Structures are given as C-alpha cells and as structure tokens.
C-alpha cells in the first residue's frame, strides 16, 4: 500500500497534463434542471429538491424495431476529480458506469471487503474487478495516480449500450482519504441519464467512514504520507461497524496524543469536486 502513496510524489506532472481538459467553472446545470438531481449520497439523492421522477428524454426510436439488433448508443464521459482538502491525498479514484438500482455502498450498511480495500489502503483493484464481473456494470476505469490536495485527475469512460437502457445510466466513484484509517469519498450511484451530450454536471462530495477500522489515527494504521502505516487489514474492529458520514480526524493537536495526524490533515465537507462531462461519440 505504501507504494500507492509514494506514486503521489510523481503526480504533479500528470496533473499538468490533465488540467487543460478540466475546470468547467463549476457548471452545475448546463442543459436542464434535472441535471441538478445529484449528490454523493445515494441513488435517489438530489442536492436540493429536484425531481428524480422525470422521464428520460432518451427513448428508442420506432425504426429500431425493424432491426433484430436493439439500437445502441455510445456514451462517452470525462470525469474530473478535484481534491478540495488541505492535507488529505485521495487514492486513485475508481469509477464505475452502471445501471441504476445497483449500489456499491449504503450508509448504515457494512462495507464490502472490496470497498474496505479502498477505504483502508487506497487500492481500487479488487473493487473494479468485482464491478467488472457484475452484469449491471457497463464500464469502469480509474485515475492513473493518487490526487494530491488541490490537484485534479481525469478518467475517461466510453461504452456502447442498448439505447433503451440509457435511462439507467448511473455513476459511482470511490477514493480513499489517504491520511485516515478508513475514510473515503465519492459518488454513490448518481443518476446521469439526464446528462445531455455536450453538457456537464458538478457535484461536491462528502466524506464517509467505512466502519471497518477503528479511527486510532496511529502511525501504524494510517497508510498515507503523514504516517506511512499499514493499509488494508482484514480485521474489522470499528464500532459502529457500518458506513456512516465521517466525523473528521481529531489529531495530536487536539487531545489525541497517539495520533500521527496534526491539524494539517483535518478537513470539513465537501472534500472533492467531481465534474462529469458527456461528449459526442
């Protein structure tokens, strides 16, 4: 796990390469009101009062019935993740394009082992393998490197899907907050079916606690550069042992002398800004 975060030191170069494709000035709703129907919280989440009951504008054309093969649509997405924290490097973001109705995590439920590997060690490999073997997944990808505070990374996804399924387009993204025991952030099955070609949507994400490792903040257990401790460990010793909103880190500067963390690693929500842009195939 250590090497995942040592990669971060080389990251600043790749950031320069990706930055040109990036900042859309936070264009939250370029094309239609329904696009604001999103947050990092859950399938049906909307940031503030926007209906998810709207019918999809993408429909199968009647002519497609003539062919024996169902009509298909190429969905091309660029996902840009900006780290908004002062001192929490984000692990290489895992991004999954999948059908709505499927979720990779839920607040109040225990984390999967695959999510635990991201939340404790920043390693997206097994989660992506697992997602790729799921029929609900169209395509997945990951950021090439970790994302330093203030930096951004870009993931491109392209999938050819049955046009009738475009109303089910959902996106999940997951990254560890590196200088924590088992903190993570991301998008939870955000419905992007209303995202028109040429449009983008921006979502500020919050931090979660996977509930898989006690928040000791110790040098032995935090894998990020502030501690360089152990990453994933199969033992589950947290209480509560379910996913919740993260309560932040305490740090040695605030009555936790055994903490390897200082005020530099503290944060408040939001922790990342994710922009999803759909472009013409």
């Amino acid at each position, binding site marked *: 796990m250590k090497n995942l975060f040592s990669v971060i030191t080389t990251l600043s170069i790749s950031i320069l390469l990706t930055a040109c494709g990036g900042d859309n000035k936070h264009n939250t709703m370029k094309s239609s009101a329904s696009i604001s129907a999103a947050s990092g919280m*859950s399938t049906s989440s909307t940031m503030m009062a926007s209906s998810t*009951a709207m019918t999809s504008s993408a429909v199968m054309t009647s002519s497609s019935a003539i062919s024996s093969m169902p009509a298909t649509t190429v969905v091309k997405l660029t996902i840009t993740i900006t780290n908004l924290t002062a001192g929490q490097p984000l692990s290489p973001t895992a991004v999954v394009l999948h059908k709505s109705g499927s979720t990779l995590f839920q607040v*109040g439920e225990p984390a999967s082992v695959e999510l635990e590997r991201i939340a404790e060690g920043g390693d997206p490999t097994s989660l992506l393998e697992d997602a790729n073997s799921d029929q609900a997944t169209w395509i997945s990808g990951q950021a090439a490197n970790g994302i330093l505070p203030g930096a951004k990374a870009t993931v491109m996804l392209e999938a050819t899907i049955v046009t009738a399924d475009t109303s089910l387009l959902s996106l999940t993204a997951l990254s560890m907050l590196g200088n924590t025991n088992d903190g993570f952030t991301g998008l939870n099955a955000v419905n992007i079916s209303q995202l028109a070609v040429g449009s983008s949507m921006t979502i500020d994400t919050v931090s979660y606690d996977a509930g898989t490792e006690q928040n000791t903040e110790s040098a032995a257990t935090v894998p990020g550069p502030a501690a360089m401790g152990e990453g994933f460990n199969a033992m589950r010793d947290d209480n509560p042992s379910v996913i919740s*909103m*993260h*309560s932040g880190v*305490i740090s040695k500067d605030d*009555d936790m002398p055994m903490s390897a963390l200082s005020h530099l690693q503290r944060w408040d*929500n939001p922790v990342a800004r994710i922009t999803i842009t759909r472009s013409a195939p």
Partner: protein
Amino acid sequence: MKKSLIVSLIALSISPTLFAATYKVEVVNLTRGIYFAPLLVSAHPSTIKHFTAGMAASTNLQKMAEGGDISGLSTDMTNASAISVANPAAGLLAPGAKTIADLGDPGTANTQLSVIGMMVPSNDGFITLNNITLPTAHGTYTYLLNGYDAGTEANDEIRGGGAPGVAGMGVPAPLEAMVGTGGTGIVGATAEGFVHIHRGVIGDQHKTGGVSDHDAGLHRWLNPVARVTVTVE
C-alpha cells in the same frame, strides 16, 4: 380583463384538488455516533414554523432541543391545523438507521414541511428541515440536513438533565454506556441566545474524567447529519 383574471383565480383555487398528493417522509441518520430523539414530521401552513435561525428559541423548541420532548412543538402544529407524525421510529433513531413518516394527503392549506428532532447526546443540538415548501409534482425529492444548536443551553458537554434550563446533557438509558462520566466541562461555554448551525462537539479520549463526557471518536460530526427523502404520489 378583470373578469378573466377572477375566473382564472377560481380555477387556480380548485386545481390543487386535481393534483391531490400523498406524502411519505423518510429520515436517515447519517452520523457516526449520534442518535436522534423522537422526530416530529409535519405538513403545515406557512403561518407557522418551529424557529427562525438567528432568533431566540421558543420554550417548546427548547424542550425538544434539551430533552427530546416534542410534545410542545406537536401541540403548536396541531393548533395550526397541521398534519403531523410524532415519533415515527418509536424511540431513538440509531446512526445509520432510517424511519418513514406517512403524512397521507395533508390537504391544500398545509403547503410546508418541517422535520425536527434532538441530537442525542448533546446539550441542545437538533436536526431539522425547517419550513420548506412541499413539492407538488409526483416524484422523489432528497434533502440533506445540518445540525443546529438551539442556543438555550451552554455546550458544557457533561452529564446533567434534559429538562429546560437544567444544565448538562440528559442521557437516555440505551446510551448510558456510550457517554463518559466525570468530565470537568468545556470552559467558557454559554447559552448563545439564538438558534444557529451547531459548531460541533469537542469530546475527549477519556471514558472517565477529561474535559467532556462526549467520546471524541464517536460523537463528533461533520454536516450533513441526516437525509430526508420525500416521496410524492
């Protein structure tokens, strides 16, 4: 011109019944270690609300925020012809848990929605969705809620009573083991005098003694603290 205006006004006043809707309100506790005391979920007229941020709390709000007692706020709502569901979770709503309040068809006068309940343990913290306009189109609407402070009690973070005006935190029996004892209390805390966004708690690492009876690893939170999903059918 005038006539047609009046005609259209009449049409407007009738139209809401054409779109009669029923409302279900789901509340999820997103926090790591804070419980929610009995919740009050109300569809109500725009003439009443539980509080205004920046203003002093009412006595009934104080009862809710310091001791989890929603009876006063519930009576306020009933007197305003609101439709309320009190205590949908039948007790404490645990971290990660959810509950649903079925408001049915609240009628055309009850255009607003409020959700409120104490954060436990805390001195006078509460979660709320305060006086939003109920959506009318069928669908699912989600709101993220912040933690509020009633401003009626000093956040000393040590055990005490839940009755209004009694210092310290009332600790309900199921949470007995999760709250420390013998804290010396946060120095300099005072009742702020107005309702505001809660600044969070300090807590400490000491089960016994220390400055606070909050567990810093369990009872701190970052916003949002709750998610409300309204389903209109």
